[in-house]
């Protein structure tokens, strides 16, 4: 065997000269070739760094009354102050922490619930599938933002409740996707082989099928962060934010009644949400391209 293969490996053939990389590394390399994805990643990284390091360079507390209310952007306050005289730039820096954290954690909750439901439904099929599909369908007929609003109104306006509420209402998309992948994969030969080798259901789901279903789930997880950020914004805009924690949505919600007199109070936080979500969806596109290079031209 080895004598047959050795000379072939030296030929400048179509085979990769490097040792076979893991699918994840291959994906990363592909991702690096997508300009949109790279730009998105750089912008998001920059946003995260600003929210983390910002306070070191810009020492104003976002909840302090830093100046006269409605100071326009200028020397006194770079991006102006809001209706109470709080500094907008400080709000953006600290608010970004809350907004991005809510986005990230809510996306994790979304994906964990969605993947669990989808994997169980797709793997076991039959009655389990029917029941879980019904459950998914049920969550899909409730407009998710409205459902999240009801949950936050009833269970309290804290960052924790908001994060959980967003996760709890957003999972059906991930569940449907995961289920479809599991349905596609579960009868393929490599799964049958593992089963024949004595693998239990837990091992089959987590170690055999799930890794192969991951690529679309990763895209979906990325997009879920963006959706969660938009949700946090929407909830805060309607007055359902956590009043004790500055966030981008809260800034817009609290200042929106004065928009005609002070454009800067809502324009900058909204732009921040816009840039963050845009960066995240560019990353999502980049990952998607990396997974399906064939589809790149159509996007």
């Amino acid at each position, binding site marked *: 065997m080895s004598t047959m293969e050795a000379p072939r490996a030296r030929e400048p053939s179509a085979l990769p000269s490097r040792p076979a990389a893991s699918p994840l590394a291959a994906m990363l390399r592909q991702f690096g070739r997508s300009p949109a994805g790279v730009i998105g990643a750089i912008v998001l990284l920059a946003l995260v760094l600003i929210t983390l390091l910002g306070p070191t360079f810009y020492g104003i507390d976002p909840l302090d009354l830093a100046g006269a209310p409605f100071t326009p952007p200028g020397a006194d306050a770079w991006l102006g102050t809001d209706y109470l005289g709080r500094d907008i730039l400080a709000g953006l820096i600290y608010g970004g922490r809350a907004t991005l954290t809510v986005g990230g954690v809510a996306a994790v909750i979304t994906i964990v619930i969605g993947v669990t439901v989808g994997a169980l439904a797709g793997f076991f099929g039959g009655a389990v599938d029917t029941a879980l599909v019904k459950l998914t369908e049920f969550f899909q007929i409730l*407009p998710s933002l409205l459902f999240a609003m009801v949950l936050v109104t*009833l269970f309290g306006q804290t960052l924790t409740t908001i994060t959980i509420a967003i996760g709890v209402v957003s999972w059906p998309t991930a569940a449907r996707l995961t289920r479809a992948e599991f349905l596609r994969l579960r009868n393929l030969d490599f799964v049958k082989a593992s089963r024949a080798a004595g693998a239990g259901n837990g091992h089959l789901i987590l170690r055999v099928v799930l890794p192969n279903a991951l690529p679309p789930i990763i895209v979906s997880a990325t997009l879920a962060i963006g959706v969660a950020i938009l949700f946090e914004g*929407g909830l805060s*805009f309607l007055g359902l934010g956590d009043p004790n924690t500055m966030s981008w949505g809260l800034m817009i919600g609290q200042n929106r009644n004065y928009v005609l007199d002070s454009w800067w109070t809502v324009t900058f936080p909204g732009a921040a949400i*816009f840039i963050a*979500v845009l960066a995240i969806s560019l990353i999502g596109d980049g990952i998607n391209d990396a997974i399906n290079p064939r589809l790149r031209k159509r996007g």
Partner: protein
Amino acid sequence: MNLLIHMTKQAANAIGLLLAVLILNFCLIHLAPGDPALVIAGEMGGASADVIAALRVKYGLDQSLLHQLWTYMSKVVTGDFGYSYYFNEPVVNLIGQRVPATLYLVISALVLSIFIGTLLGVISARKPNGWLSQGVTVISLAGYAAPVFWTGLMLLLLFGSVWPILPVSGMSDVARPKSGLAHLVDVVQHLILPSITLALVFIAQYSRLARVNMIDALTADYVRTARAKGLPEFIVIGKHALRNTLIPIVTVAGLQFGHLFAGAVLVETVFSWPGMGRLVYESILRRDYPTLLAVLFFSAVLVMTANIITDLVYRLIDPRIRSGPR
């Protein structure tokens, strides 16, 4: 006949899901921190211990949970969704008053977004690497990422102070009430900004979807056949290719009705549009639970109706589904 059986199944499924929403509503109220009697007392503006005890008996809160659920369900079936102390009206009346405004907004935005989205997608698909095509990609990314309430506020700024040519608040000119045709024109003018704001999000998605599907359709055999037959280009695209482009758009549009409705809640709040979204906002502010939960239920009814209509339209556009086995 096939269709009849299918529709019956659909209806049964819908009723089942709506009953589940009612049970969820009931559970939510009971899971939420705080005694419902105290909540009701709070809505009434406070009450003594005696009154609270009386409330407990009046609303059956001293009965078993299952009994309470039964009472709740049987009331809902007769159209009784409770009473809003803040608005001083039965909840069902409140919703009845607000549904038309929301439907105007949602349906106009839906039509606008499907029409413009498809148009943009189809035009850009003809030259997939042209500047218009690139533009559609940018629009679809931006439209997806911009929070709808922020877009609304930006348009409100633009048309409210920079270039005041459109009304930015309410549904009609309260200061100068009009009647007949003038009233209609007035309402349409008020509808323009909210409707465009809401449509932008979906124009973004549908143009992208239409572009991808149109590019696919234009390389399909049946399009080549149609061209080979010598049909004019506008028939090839307008009749043959467009039909297959519309199917996924209609499906997605129908499935996204919930998103559309949620978007309407935000847009109505920005432009003080007197629909169900505005009602939600007001009931959140006043902690008016009966109204809030009833809106959740009615929005589920709307989404369900939209899904059933989508299914029908889908069958209409795509004959393969009508005749073939599912």
